[in-house]
């Protein structure tokens, strides 16, 4: 089920629902992450205050984004980094391919970056003749399988250890085993070789600090540290929304992000990188290039309602909490960003034409809003997007049905008639089979409230 399209969400979802192995894996993952998040949030007495504070910081950064970006870029450049600005995905990929060529890069190691998934950077680099190796274990697995990630923070949760073992045996010549430690060791050994020979390292960015020009990247495995320490050139790719004003703001975000994502107090590693090394003999890359990607983000920024979509810190908590994601998983969304936040940002990034089913992939229950560490009102955004879509997309029958319903509900005489008609016809006319297939419909009472009231 590789590379599905957002245009066929309904079909994708149907296929996912029939896949019992996938649904088992999803249930385990989403309930485990969800429980851990709840525990981790409860361990901080001021969780709600932190959420409010985080959102205020993001709002501040986003309402003066031009200024903070400028400050970040000039501070980072003063410390030796080179900052590039990319209007769209093609431009970002072009900049990075050009850098790779200029440095005669043959092997490029990459740490996990949703932003480069968004721009399909690997394809562009491979087309330019470079070998790109994903080094996050989950990303490495799906790269070998030629599949997109199915979860923001656990990209390979849809695969069983058996499937991964088969993949490693076929692709890496590993002796057959389904021992997780053995699988992990195989990946470690293979990737060490790549780290040792890579000419360039590409990473994402979790936070960019305007005040100091620092980029902060969080992880558990250690592959980001290797990617950003070993190769001669480090390229960091970030959406323009990653900038926050002050170094001290990290206190709030480093408390919220790991707790919301995996339920950890802190992930194992945080790398704080400010420009390039001071002396040629110091450890670390000689060059640092930071690519600032817009790719539709300015459009989101322009509207006061959609602006909050850019506050997202990519923790994945809304995926785990979403009753739709829990059942269909990430691939069904047919986009890099799945789940509730994906249903909100994908149509805004890629245009609504090809993604118009996504804002409807929600029951609007609000669980996503409740767990969001930066209090993004996802249901409100979904409704906003639906309103943009429905005038063009709603069927004629649906429009007629709602028109009739409105007429009946606003006329006492018609309403009375309708309740009598409902009682008489309920056993004759089949109500929508999609509803009654899986459950019974409660019969309509023999006397209406109005009639009971009159007889009293």
């Amino acid at each position, binding site marked *: 089920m590789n590379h599905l399209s957002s245009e066929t969400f309904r079909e994708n979802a149907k296929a996912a629902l029939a896949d019992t192995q996938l649904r088992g*894996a999803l249930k385990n993952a989403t309930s485990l992450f969800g429980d851990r998040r709840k525990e981790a949030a409860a361990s901080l007495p001021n969780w709600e205050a932190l959420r409010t504070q985080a959102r205020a910081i993001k709002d501040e950064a986003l309402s003066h984004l031009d200024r903070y970006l400028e400050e970040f870029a000039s501070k980072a450049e003063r410390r030796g980094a080179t900052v590039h600005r990319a209007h769209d995905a093609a431009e970002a990929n072009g900049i990075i391919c050009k850098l790779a060529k200029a440095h005669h890069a043959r092997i490029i190691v990459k740490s996990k970056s949703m932003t480069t998934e968004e721009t399909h950077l690997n394809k562009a680099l491979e087309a330019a003749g470079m070998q790109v190796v994903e080094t996050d274990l989950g990303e490495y697995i799906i790269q070998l399988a030629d599949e997109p990630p199915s979860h923001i923070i656990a990209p390979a949760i849809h695969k069983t250890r058996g499937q991964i073992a088969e993949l490693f045996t076929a692709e890496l010549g590993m002796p057959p085993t389904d021992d997780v430690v053995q699988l*992990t060791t195989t990946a470690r050994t293979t990737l060490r070789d790549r780290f040792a020979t890579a000419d360039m390292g590409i990473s994402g960015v979790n936070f960019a600090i305007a005040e100091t020009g620092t980029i902060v990247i969080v992880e558990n495995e250690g592959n980001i540290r290797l990617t950003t320490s070993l190769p001669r050139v480090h390229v960091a790719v970030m959406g323009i929304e990653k900038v926050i004003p002050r170094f001290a703001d990290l206190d709030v975000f480093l408390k919220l992000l790991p707790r919301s994502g995996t339920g950890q107090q802190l992930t*194992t590693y945080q*790398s*704080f990188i400010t420009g390039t090394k001071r002396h040629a003999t110091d*450890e670390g890359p000689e060059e640092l290039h930071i690519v600032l990607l817009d790719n539709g983000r300015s459009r989101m920024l322009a509207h006061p309602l959609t602006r909050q979509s850019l506050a997202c810190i990519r923790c994945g908590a809304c995926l785990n909490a979403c009753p739709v994601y829990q059942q269909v998983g990430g691939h069904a969304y047919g986009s890099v960003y799945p789940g509730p936040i994906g249903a909100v940002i994908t149509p805004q990034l890629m245009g609504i034409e090809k993604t118009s089913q996504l804002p409807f992939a929600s029951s609007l229950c609000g669980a996503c809003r409740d767990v969001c560490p930066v209090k993004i009102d996802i249901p409100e955004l979904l409704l906003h997007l639906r309103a943009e879509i429905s005038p063009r997309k709603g069927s004629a029958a649906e429009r007629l049905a709602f028109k009739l319903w409105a007429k009946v509900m606003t006329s006492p005489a018609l309403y009375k008639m309708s309740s009598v008609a409902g009682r008489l016809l309920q056993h004759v006319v089949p109500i929508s089979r999609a509803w009654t297939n899986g459950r019974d419909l409660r019969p309509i009472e023999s006397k209406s409230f109005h009639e009971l009231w009159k007889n009293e």
Partner: protein
Amino acid sequence: MSSEIFKKNLESVAGHCVITTDVTDALRRIITDLRAQRIAVSDAPGLAEFGVVPSATEIFDFEVGITNAQAAIAETGTLVLDSSCERNRLVSVVPPVHIAIVAASRIYPTLADVLAMLQSGSEVSPAITFITGPSRTADIELTLTIGVHGPRELYVIIDEST
């Protein structure tokens, strides 16, 4: 007090911690227990007798890496490594075992305290790394596996002699 809180939090994420007034003795014991032969050290003073300072190409051949940590956070059991103070970037991540030494007086109570400290100099150091426990992943069937790309074991020696 801070030492004990740090120890408890580090142990909760599968790290080992020794609180001592004799760092050399503690280091020797750990190395002996590990039966380690090939030991890499950062260029910090006092570590040279325990191993060699490797180049970037040699670094993959060592079993243990020893560095200092410039600070620590008690509330999370986190080490703070500042690369402008010593060559600690690769020695602390490539070998399968990392041993770090931190002065008890450099343990700060909270993350906020450390962030303020890191910013207090004339400029933020080019590369700072926070380390909380050994490297880990849960990318295969959510099974927690210790030791992926970074160290499988992390030992922290807290120096209470100063």
